[in-house]
C-alpha cells in the first residue's frame, strides 16, 4: 500500500509517503501564495525520495495544515491538531503532550495513553508565540533565526520582554539594543517571553510527561531551554524530523483509512459471493 500525507503550512509545505509501514520524508518546500502549487511541489519531492515516478501510484492522500482545503488532489483533509497528534504518537507512543510551534500559530495538544486527543489549545490570531514572531525579532537583531536558536545565546541574565504583541515587542527590543543590552540577554528574553505564553496554552490543554516539540521551531535551543524552565519538565525531540510531524500524521491517517476501505471492500465482495 502506498499513501501520502501533505501538510501545507503558512511558511512551508511538507509531504510524507508511506509504503506499507516504511516512512519516506520529502523536502521542506517554501510556501507560495498558492497552497495547491506548494502541495504539488511537496508531493513531487516526496515521490522522488520514495523512488516513485507518478502521483497515480498513491492510493490515498490526506492533506492537513492551513492550506489543506486547497489541496485539490487529496482524498480528504484532517485538521493539523489531529495530524500532529497522530504523527507524534506514531513516532513515540510515550508522548502525552505536544507543543507545535509553526509559522503562524502555536498549539498545545494533550494525548491519552492510547494516543487519543484529550484536549488542545491554539493561540488566537496574534502572531506572538509563533515562528513569525521569531522571524520579526531575528530581523530586528540582524542575527538570523540561527542566532535566536543558538545555545551560545542562552543567558542567565535575560532581559524582560513585557510586550507579547509582535509589533510592540519589536520597538521594545530596539530600545534594549539602543541601551546596549547584550544580545544573548535579549535573545533569552525573547525565548522566555514566547515560552511563557506557550506554557499557558500547554497547561490549559493538559500538561503531562512526555513532552515533545514539533513544527519549525523545534530546533530553537533557547526556546526549548526556556520551555523546560517554564513547564518544569524536559522537552524532548522526536527521532523523526519534527517539522514533518503533521505530514507524517496525515500519512498515517491515509494508511489507516485506505486499509479500512480495502477491508470493507473485501467484506462486501465476500458477502456478495
Amino acid at each position, binding site marked *: 500500500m502506498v499513501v501520502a500525507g501533505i501538510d501545507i503550512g503558512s511558511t512551508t509545505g511538507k509531504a510524507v509517503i508511506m509504503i506499507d509501514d516504511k516512512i519516506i520524508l520529502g523536502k521542506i518546500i517554501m510556501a507560495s501564495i498558492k497552497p495547491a502549487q506548494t502541495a504539488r511541489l511537496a508531493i513531487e519531492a516526496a515521490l522522488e525520495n520514495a523512488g516513485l515516478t507518478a502521483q497515480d501510484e498513491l492510493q490515498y492522500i490526506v492533506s492537513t495544515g492551513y492550506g489543506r482545503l486547497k489541496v485539490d488532489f487529496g482524498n480528504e483533509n484532517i*485538521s493539523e*491538531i489531529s495530524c500532529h497528534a497522530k504523527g507524534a504518537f506514531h513516532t513515540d507512543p510515550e508522548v502525552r503532550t505536544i507543543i507545535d510551534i509553526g509559522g503562524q500559530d502555536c498549539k498545545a495538544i494533550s494525548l491519552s495513553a492510547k494516543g487519543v*486527543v484529550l484536549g*488542545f489549545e491554539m493561540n488566537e*490570531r496574534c502572531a506572538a508565540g509563533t515562528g513569525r514572531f521569531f522571524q520579526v525579532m531575528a530581523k530586528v537583531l540582524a542575527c538570523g533565526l540561527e542566532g535566536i536558536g543558538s545555545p551560545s545565546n542562552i543567558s542567565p541574565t535575560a532581559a524582560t520582554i513585557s510586550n507579547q504583541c509582535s509589533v510592540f515587542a519589536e520597538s521594545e527590543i530596539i530600545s534594549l539594543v539602543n541601551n546596549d543590552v547584550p544580545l544573548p540577554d535579549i535573545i533569552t528574553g525573547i525565548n522566555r517571553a514566547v515560552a511563557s505564553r506557550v506554557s499557558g496554552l500547554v497547561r490549559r490543554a493538559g500538561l503531562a510527561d512526555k513532552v515533545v516539540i514539533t513544527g519549525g521551531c523545534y530546533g530553537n535551543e533557547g526556546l526549548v531551554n526556556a520551555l523546560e524552565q517554564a513547564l518544569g519538565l524536559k522537552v524532548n525531540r522526536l527521532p523523526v524530523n519534527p517539522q514533518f510531524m503533521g505530514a507524517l500524521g496525515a500519512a498515517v491517517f491515509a494508511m489507516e483509512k485506505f486499509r479500512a476501505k480495502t477491508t470493507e471492500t473485501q467484506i462486501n465482495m465476500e458477502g456478495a459471493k
Partner: protein
Amino acid sequence: MRSGLKSDIFEKFSALAGSISNSEVEGWKQQGGKVIGYTCSFVPEELFVAAGLMPFRIRATGSLSAGRADDYFEAANICSLVRHCFNKILTGEYEFIDGCVIGGGCDANRHILDNWEKSEARIPFLHRIFFPHSSGILMAQNFRNQLENLKQLLEEHFGLKITDDKLRDAIVLCNEIRDLQKAIYALRKVDNPPITASETIALVVAGYSMPKEAYKADLTQLLEELRGVTVPENKKTVRLMVVGPGHDEPTLCDIIETMGGTVVTDLTCYGGKTLFGSVREADPDPLQALADYQVIDRPLCPKNLDAHPIINREVMDKIKEYRVDGIIGQSYLCCETWGGELFVLQKELKEAGIPMLRIEREYTSDSLGQVQTRVQAFIETISGGLL
C-alpha cells in the same frame, strides 16, 4: 448552510436576516408606523408592541469594519459586536429608526449611548435602561420602576398611551411567538434536524426585524411546513450546542456544519437565551410581570452576579434534552462578560466529562480561518475519527 427545504417563509426570513433595513420595515414606515431600536435581549419588546411601535433589535449584520466606531471606542476594550453595531449607526444604516433604547446590561453596550450622544448621528429619542446585576424581588421592583419611567417617556415623546390592556395583549402576542420558536427549536432534537443552524439564526433574527403580528403568522405557517418535512436517512454527526453572546450572522454555524457537526441548539443572546418560559399574562400589573420575567425568571446573562449556577444548569439541561455531544463557547474579543463565564463553564463541563471548545473572535466573518481548524479538530476529537 441550507437544509434543502423549499419554503417561501425561509426565503423571506433569510432576506430579512441578511440585511439591516428591509421591505417589512419600509412597508411599516410607509403606513405611518414608527420603529424603535433597542440593544440587548433584556429590553422588553412587549412595551414597544403595546405602544404600537415596531421593535427592531440593533445588530451589525454584514459589517466588515468598525473603523468609524473606533474613533470613539479606540481607547477602550470594547467588544467587537458593540463596535460593529455602533459603526452601523454612524454610517447611517439605522436612519430608519425613530428612537432607540440602549440596554445597560454590560459596560460596552451602555457606552453606545454615551458615544451616540457625542456623535454626528442624530436620533430623536434615545434612552438608556439599567439592568439589575442580580435577581430577586427588590431588583425586580427596581426594574419595574425603570420600565414605568420608560413607558412614560415613550408616551410623552410619541404622543400615545400605553394602557395595561395593551400591555397584556402585547405580552400574549410575544408569548405566542416564543412558544412557536420553542416548537421549532424542539424539532432539532431528532437525529437529523429538518433545519440547519444558519436557518435557525435567520428565523430568530427575522423576528427582531419585522412587525410581530406578521412574524407570528409566518412562524405558524413555517412550523406547519417543518412538521411535514421527511428527514433524510440517518448520518453520523456530532451534535453541538453554541453558548455565548448574540451572533446574528451564520458564518460560525456554517463552519461547524460544513465540518461534520450539527448545531442542535444554542444558548445565545439572539436565540435560545430568549426562549425561556413565558411572561405572566393576566397579571394586574403587567409591568411587574415583565420585570419579574427578565430579572427573576430569566436571569441567564453572565452580567448577573448570581447567574452562573443558572446558566450552568440550563446548559446541562439542554445537553440532556438535545443529546448534545459537545459545547462550542464563542465570544467576541474583549467581551468581559462572556469571556469570564465561558472559562468557568469550560472547567465545570470538563469535570462532567463534556467537551467544550472556546472560541474568541472578531465579529467580522472574514477572520475565521483559524476558527475553522479548531472547530474541525474539536469535531474530530469528539468523533474519534468515526465521521
